[in-house]
């Protein structure tokens, strides 16, 4: 290394920026090189009958090399690796829109990158959902030729939605952008790691999306063993893609936890910590507990496929995998919706100009949801259990509605006798509460073994979790995007277009997914592209509304994007929020707080006696 360091030029000479290849293209190029080199190495040296160029083992190792190549090519080679070995490099980040398409350490850029990556995943997986719904318009196979193609599409839809949207969009996107601002910090705790973790998301999405190239897989987003062992090799790309996505979430969580613990501005005590930061902290802890568990499970499954280890067949039983999966799988639901709860409690006090009711109970609710989430997993397996085993899981599952209820009570108490401004974010949040209520109520039914055994693996379940996840998370995500749009872009959206967007998705969402409950109760099974003819009319109609729902999301994306670029200049603090992010004028690439702010009061006290919660030294107190 020392010789290489000596060879580097001194920077007393003026630095001349080199023209480079677009980092995304270079990432792909290095990934391709990495794949070819390692794939060839493995397939040539590890004896396989017939010497095919791509074997399951070689594609696995090749993928890892490709991932490393991709991460290096995107800019970490100059910005992380060379400095780590003591080689002086100047890292010259691009400007303008280009900075979103390469490695960055600015938490605001990373936040936007995460939002965009998640949105991309959302629309890719949404397209898969549309293909499924089009197939289900008839009770026969017609769009897909093979059942495996349908099942693979279901799997791609679920996997990308859960691991690149549900888990990541709020935590990685808004968490990265808002949290450092909200706690008065200029950076997140580990900006370099954060910049790397982002680029795992597109890699993971593409890996899962292109899994059919290796063969169809039939397990859905849960990767069930030993079923997966019998699948063709596409399942390998499922495991690898999910590994990349979960690794990204894990790194985000480490970063956010450390940021919230160590980077708070003076005066920002735990009692004053904004509720969204509490939500992010809770979710990050959930991630830190459960993601390593599921990552190990997926690695074992990958080994079961690639190395033919009998982990889930000869030694274990099919239940082994189910226990391991759902031990993570149920907390995952709370990983998805807890940020949603936090957003309700963050946005509505601002919109209603009223102090947050029972703020501490809101925080306790979030923490208790986190604590209980790991005690309910077996309700996914009531059909595989003895009766006396069901009771505790049924009990804990219904228990979880209590801390969830805190979130509702806090928000309802806040709204009580308030002058609520019915802006687009407000409407989205109220819709999110309504939808999540339906998801929660049907969840209580499903926690009850009697009904669960009846509705198991029907569309009733599908309806239930789409109500909790789209209803709870996607709606509050949209609300948050509208709410923070002036902060993110400095521009304002068109209120009328926003409200139309909200009503559009709300109506089509509810018409689509209420019918899932009815379909389920009538006997429509999950995981089948072909069903009994008497269900066809309803499925046909559901598919039409599902497509309208998809267009509704597209509409909202376009409204937000248009406002981002062309919207009128927004006021600095259009909603009159008191949290710290509104005190920072920083667009991307600049420092959030040139002078460290000091927190002197609660962010959520409104009314006659309310005072500013933040003091900016040397500046006028009020920024409104």
């Amino acid at each position, binding site marked *: 290394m020392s010789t290489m360091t000596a060879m580097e030029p001194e*920077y007393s000479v003026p*630095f001349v*920026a*080199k*023209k*480079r290849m*677009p*980092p*995304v*293209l270079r990432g*792909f190029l290095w990934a391709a090189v990495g794949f070819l080199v390692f794939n060839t190495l493995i397939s040539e040296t590890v004896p396989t*009958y*017939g010497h*095919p160029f791509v074997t399951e083992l070689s594609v696995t190792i090749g993928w890892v090399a490709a991932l490393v190549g991709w991460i290096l090519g995107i800019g970490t080679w100059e*910005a992380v690796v060379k*400095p780590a070995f003591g080689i*002086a490099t*100047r890292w*010259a*980040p*691009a400007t*303008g829109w*280009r900075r979103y*398409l390469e490695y960055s*350490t600015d938490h605001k850029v990373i936040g936007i990158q995460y939002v965009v990556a998640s949105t991309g995943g959302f629309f890719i997986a949404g397209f898969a959902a549309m293909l499924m719904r089009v197939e289900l318009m008839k009770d*026969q*196979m017609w769009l897909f*030729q*093979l*059942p*495996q193609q349908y099942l693979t599409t279901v799997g791609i839809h679920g996997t990308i939605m859960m691991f690149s949207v549900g888990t990541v969009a709020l935590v990685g996107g808004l968490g990265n952008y808002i949290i450092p601002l909200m706690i008065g*910090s*200029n*950076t*997140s*705790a580990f*900006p*370099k790691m954060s910049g790397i973790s982002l680029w795992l998301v597109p890699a993971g999405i*593409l890996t899962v*999306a*292109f899994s059919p*190239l290796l*063969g*169809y897989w039939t397990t859905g987003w849960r990767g069930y063993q030993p079923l997966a062992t019998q699948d*063709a*090799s596409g399942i390998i790309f499922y495991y690898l893609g999910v590994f990349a996505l979960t690794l990204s979430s894990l790194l985000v969580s480490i970063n956010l936890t450390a940021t919230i613990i*160590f*980077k*708070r*501005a*003076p005066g*920002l005590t735990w009692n004053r910590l904004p509720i969204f930061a509490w939500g992010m902290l809770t979710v990050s802890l959930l991630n830190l507990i459960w993601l390593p568990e599921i990552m190990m499970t997926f690695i074992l499954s990958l080994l079961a496929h690639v190395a*033919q280890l009998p982990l889930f067949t000869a030694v274990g039983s099919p239940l082994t995998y189910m226990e391991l999966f759902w031990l993570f799988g149920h907390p995952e639901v709370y990983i998805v919706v807890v940020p949603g709860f936090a957003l309700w409690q963050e946005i509505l006090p601002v919109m209603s100009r009223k102090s947050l009711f029972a703020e501490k109970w809101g925080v306790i609710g979030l923490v208790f949801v986190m604590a209980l989430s790991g005690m309910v997993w077996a309700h996914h397996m009531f059909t595989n259990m003895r009766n006396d085993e069901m009771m505790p899981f049924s009990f804990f599952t219904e228990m979880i509605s209590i801390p969830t209820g805190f979130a509702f009570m806090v928000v309802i108490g806040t709204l009580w006798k308030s002058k609520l401004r019915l802006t687009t974010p407000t409407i989205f949040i109220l819709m999110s509460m309504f939808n999540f209520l339906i998801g929660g109520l049907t969840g209580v039914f499903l926690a009850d073994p009697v009904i669960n055994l009846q509705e198991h693996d029907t569309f009733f379940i599908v309806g239930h979790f789409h109500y909790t996840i789209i209803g709870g998370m996607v709606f509050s995500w949209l609300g948050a995007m509208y709410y923070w749009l002036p902060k993110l872009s400095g521009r304002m959206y068109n209120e009328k277009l926003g409200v139309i967007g909200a009503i559009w998705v709300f109506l089509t969402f509810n018409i689509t997914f209420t019918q899932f409950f009815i379909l389920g109760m009538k006997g429509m099974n999950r995981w089948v*592209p*072909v069903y009994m003819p008497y269900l066809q009319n309803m499925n046909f109609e559901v598919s039409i509304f599902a497509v309208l729902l998809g267009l509704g999301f597209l509409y909202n994306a376009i409204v937000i994007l248009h406002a981002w670029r062309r919207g009128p200049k927004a006021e600095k603090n259009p909603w009159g929020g008191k949290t710290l992010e509104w005190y920072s004028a920083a667009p991307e*690439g*600049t*420092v959030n707080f*040139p002078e*460290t702010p000091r927190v002197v009061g609660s962010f959520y006290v409104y009314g006659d006696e309310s005072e500013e919660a933040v003091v900016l030294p040397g500046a006028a107190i009020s920024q409104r």
Partner: protein
Amino acid sequence: MDSNEGKQANQQSDDKGDTGGMLQRTDEPVDWSRRKFLIGTGAMAIVGITALFGQSLIGKTIKAMTGVPVSKGIQDLYVGDYYYLPNEMVWRVGDEVVVNFHNLSPNRFHEWMMGQGFDLTPSDFGDVKTQFHKDFWDGVQVEVLEGHGVDNFVTNKAIIKSNEKYPWLITQQGQGNFSPTLMPGGSIRLKIKVPDKPGVWQYGCFVQGFVHYRAGMKGTLRIIKS
């Protein structure tokens, strides 16, 4: 909590310690070519989507450009889950071919049928291709050289010649297409003189309720005139 981020600024010197975790930046912005980016990613997207939704199309294009060599002598034909390797072969009429048919799957039985057209059975999932309508091996002289782990060998109307009485000559004429079915790891070696049946023939594995064929276990044999 004391925080010293306040004094952080963009234009830091080379000293990495003071950047508060942020990387040093240079004043000169580096811009890469927008056109290169758009063309490059656009082309990759097109290739990717074509690969995803029209897999065979790309494979066919590449094969059309490179061509498949005519094979004679020993030809290895491997099967795995769920593919043939190769899945495209070219034989010339009159050549002598020794096919070494080998099942690589660790846990599944696979067979090798070859013919033209399909016998269809209607089902809820649409018509199922159960076997070939016209058997390639009809009247072809086949010499069995060697066999291990052969589960079932349907000879149909092929003229079988083998030096010994092999235990795998189980199923006789009238029980479906000519097809050796191999146990996991099994193999069979067949010697034939390519018959005068020029044209395009399909081969496939219909084991496990035709699931293997539906999962893509198929190939093409082209017989060219001598």
